[in-house]
């Protein structure tokens, strides 16, 4: 078995996906907003007004409480393995930030909420970033061999 292998978790991943979708539906129902992590994060730091800041801060606080809830429910912190070195996390983070800012969304905003609205822009953006990620991982894993 490949040393890099991770366990295939169709049931947990499907359940997690349904919860992400439910959160997106509830945010639209209550606040009339797209549940995009990029937009919520950006306007948390650059809000229109206090009320605009407050709901974003509350969503982010809820997200950040999730690991503690996970710990309470399962007795363990959520599993995390980071293959990237710190320098790669910085470079990758800068590119992710710049990219989602230009594209106006990320996996949650375009990939989930946008496609669910059948937005042609979101479908195009999702195809573009998925293709770029496949290519990048191929280059890093199989051409550079990192």
């Amino acid at each position, binding site marked *: 078995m490949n040393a890099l292998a991770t366990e295939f978790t169709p049931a947990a991943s499907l359940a997690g996906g349904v919860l992400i979708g439910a959160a997106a539906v509830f945010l639209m129902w209550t*606040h009339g907003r797209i*549940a995009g992590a990029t937009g919520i994060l950006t306007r948390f*730091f650059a809000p229109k007004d206090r009320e605009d800041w407050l709901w974003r801060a509350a969503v982010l606080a809820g*997200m950040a409480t999730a690991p503690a809830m996970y710990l309470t429910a399962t007795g363990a912190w959520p599993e995390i393995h980071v293959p990237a070195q710190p320098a790669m996390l910085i470079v990758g983070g800068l590119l992710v*930030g710049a990219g989602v800012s230009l594209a106006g969304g990320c996996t949650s905003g375009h990939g989930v909420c946008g496609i669910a609205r059948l937005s042609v822009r979101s479908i195009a953006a999702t195809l573009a970033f998925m293709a770029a990620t496949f290519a990048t991982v191929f280059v890093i894993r199989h051409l550079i061999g990192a």
Partner: protein
Amino acid sequence: MRALSAYLIGLLFGAGSLISGMGNPAKVINFFDIAGAWDPSLVFVMGGALVTTLLGYRFVLAQPAPLFDGGFNLPTKDNIDERLLGGAAVFGVGWGIAGFCPGGALPMLGAGDLRVLLFVSACVSGIFLSRALTAALKPTATKETRA
């Protein structure tokens, strides 16, 4: 009430992200490594999230307004341009390098892992550098168009 519901929605999103494995870069990168240690789990994350949102939005967007706001805030742009596709491609490269996307990393911040904090700090820097650069380039572009 507004803030409480937003908090609970964040918690729900975060729980989903953690349970799905989106906050675990090894798992995310393995989804994109078809030629290597392929882990197809992310198909199920996207499938579950998309079907739920697709069905839920049908009901929600048929309402006259959201519960706590006068109207729905929906994106209005409908053009596919180089900014959208280029930005998405840059995001994809970064996602492949780091293994984190914003929706995976933000909930994981609460687990107190410094590598997540490093990624999120870089991501926020990238967002605001890109915004500053875009704003700085805008007036020049207008002048050129006028000239």
